[in-house]
């Protein structure tokens, strides 16, 4: 396996959790709810996935439990912001803080335990095609789920009546209520879908990406997923592109940190000199790259106020109390 192929593969691995969590949050935000608790939901998914896989011995049991855990945990958020009409920003933060706390406590028992890795699929022959074979036909199952999920969400939002209803609720909950659409039901379901996705994304981290449990192992990925939704202007395909862009940034900086200059001595003079220059950047600065990139990307995408206003679901974050 060549270095390039390895890099491409790891990019997909880094992008997949971001993609899944962001697609879930996209659906939530399209329904007019801002859930800032993605980080907390992911970390709950990660601990539930790891723990149940460990107890049952099956990675798949872990995955299913992580999805359920994410959906249930998001129900707490839904109850507060929908039924009790609490502030969505504050409640999302609360979800993240609680998720980090609870997962830390549950996960104490799992620290240092060997993980169970979800095995990759390997389609014979096809997966042996150079460069792209393993990328397209030899990955873990969740990679394929993430791609299918993106396409299904796209189809759902723009090709089905239920999706139209969801977009309508996000555009104007007042009008939707007047027409007899149950804003509450739509939003409860959307939030739980988002929670399930975040749970799955978390399980990917603890069962595929690094099959073990480390406290706070999501390391801000939930927040990056939130930023991706803004970056993507609430469109699924752009979320896909954004997730791979961030995956690439993460992986490239990791590879720069890992590679030793000795391995690069074959390079021609100038390029070697450049490479050694890059290598002289402290590792902390390289690690900060994904976070800085998030800020820069947000700036670039938000600076066009008109466009942002056009794309943002008009009811996003606004409280809704149905009058009966």
């Amino acid at each position: 396996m060549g270095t390039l192929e390895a890099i491409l593969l790891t990019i997909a691995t880094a992008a997949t959790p971001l993609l899944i969590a962001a697609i879930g949050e996209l659906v939530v935000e399209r329904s007019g709810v801002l859930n800032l608790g993605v980080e907390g939901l992911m970390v709950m998914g990660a601990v539930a996935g790891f723990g149940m896989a460990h107890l049952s011995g099956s990675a798949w049991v872990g995955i299913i439990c992580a999805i359920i855990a994410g959906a249930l945990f998001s129900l707490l958020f839904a109850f507060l912001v929908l039924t009790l009409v609490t502030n969505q920003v504050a409640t999302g933060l609360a979800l993240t803080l609680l998720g980090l706390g609870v997962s830390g406590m549950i996960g104490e028992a799992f620290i240092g335990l060997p993980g169970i890795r979800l095995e990759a699929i390997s389609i014979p022959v096809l997966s042996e095609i150079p460069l792209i074979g393993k990328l397209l036909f030899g990955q873990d199952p969740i990679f394929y789920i993430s791609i299918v999920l993106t396409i299904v969400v796209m189809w759902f939002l723009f090709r089905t009546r239920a999706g139209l209803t969801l977009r309508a609720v996000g555009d104007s909950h007042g009008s939707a209520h007047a027409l007899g659409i149950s804003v509450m039901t739509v939003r409860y379901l959307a939030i739980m879908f988002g929670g399930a996705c975040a749970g799955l994304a978390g399980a990917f981290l603890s069962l595929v990406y690094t099959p073990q449990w480390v406290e706070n192992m999501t390391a801000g990925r939930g927040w990056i997923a939130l930023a991706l939704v803004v970056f993507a202007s609430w469109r699924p395909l752009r979320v896909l592109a954004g997730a791979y862009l961030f995956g690439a940034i993460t992986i490239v900086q990791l590879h720069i940190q890992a590679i030793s200059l000795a391995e690069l001595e074959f390079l021609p003079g100038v390029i070697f000199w450049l490479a050694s220059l890059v290598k002289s950047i402290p590792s902390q600065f390289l690690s900060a790259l994904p976070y800085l990139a998030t800020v820069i990307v947000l700036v670039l995408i938000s600076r066009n106020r008109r466009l942002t206003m056009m794309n943002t679901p008009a009811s996003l974050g606004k409280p809704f109390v149905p009058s009966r």
Partner: protein
Amino acid sequence: MSKVPEHGATPLLEVRGLTKIFGELRACDAVDLVIAKGEIHSLLGENGAGKSTLVKMLFGSLEPNAGEILWNGNVENIRSPGQARSLGIGMVFQHFSLFEALTAAENIALSLDKETQIDTIAEKARALSESYGLPLDPYSLVGDLSVGERQRIEIIRCLLQEPDLIILDEPTSVLTPQEADKLFETLERLRSEGKSILYISHRLEEVKRMCDAATVLRHGKVVNHCDPQQETAASLANMMVGEEVTSAARTPPAEGQEGEVLIEVKNLNREPATPFSIPLRDVSLDVRAGEVVGIAGVAGNGQGELFEAISGEVIQDSPSVVRFRNQDAGKLSITERRLQGVGFVPEERLGHGAVPEMKLSDNLLLSRHTTDSKAFLGGLGVIKHDTISQTTKRINQEMDVRKSGEDPEAAALSGGNLQKYIIGRELDRQPAVMIVNQPTWGVDAGAAARIRQSLIDLARSGSAVLVISQDLDELFEVCDAIAVMHNGELSKPLPIAEATFEKIGLLMGGAEPGHVEHDHGT
């Protein structure tokens, strides 16, 4: 033309003792109502009389506390708009229930209960709209459409459900007189097709012209069932209001000498700030001391943008495009413009003219923290609560603001009382210039008369008053001249003696200013 239903025939809809209570307010109190087949039935009442509450119960979006609804003689418990639709009740909302980010066809699809291909819906909508003479592009985004076009979508959406009863909530309040005529034709055609219509309005002329029967509501109770053809506009008004409400007395402006120009807007241009806002193009206008000038126009033609520009909520590029009392104001902030002696009253009461969750006395500071800083603020910017409470009390007395408690939160007041307070807050400063956007929108008749009179009195005492309003009756009542805003452009003002509903209506519909003769403003 009016068809009296056969005696004894089962009415299409019968309502008995319908009651809705919000907190301590009986919004609808034992309301009875009978609508025959093929009848246009008017529901009359002031703002706050309970009309909207009643129709929301009929359409299933509110749940009654008591009473029953009979549909074709059968008791029905209408629990949702979907159920109302399946019975055959359609609704055209006053504030529209449309989705701006979706297309017309998608909007229509959302209220059809069957899952239908969007293209099929679009074709049906196009065909239906053409047959009623209400042309509509099903693939246009609602956000890009005018108010009149949006109402068409609501009507077409309602008709596609083939209802037997169509409820229209204040449909003409957003239309030009000519558009309203078009609507009446459509309604008469629907009646001739055997459909019943429940027509909600407070415009008596329309009701007399078109309706076969009327039910009048006041403070949530039915005060009368009558035949509007047998009544005069005055007798209907008395039933609605319950007391003699005199309209504002417009004393003629001082003869002979023309007042000094106090408001001067010259070639004001403004780019749209949001995707759905209207650019202003070359707006010019003078208002002199002693006069009230009105700006008419259908909602969403740039009036809000104009108010923001004149008030200084948005600052202009050049100092001389807006001048007050012979001083440049274009580059001044709203606070600096207030210091020039200008008072402003915005359209929205809650969230713009007042902070809903703040007390009235705190809301006093909103527009007067700098103009009256000597009186209201001490060292370090410490607020003198004594003084602001006293001033608030004075305003409340002056404007007859009725409220529960000494100093309630703004949101706890009725629309009319809060509006009286917001207007009084500015009048209390005796501004040389006053600019008011929609002075009596959604306000009861008593409060409206008081507000209008106070604006006329202010002008006659030597101030210049500019009134932006969608309500033509109001403008004809208070103004000395009326200009019309259409699509971001402002016509020249017509002196009131020359202005008629028809002329103003044509300008509101976008007729070239040249079509209407005028010679004011020279």
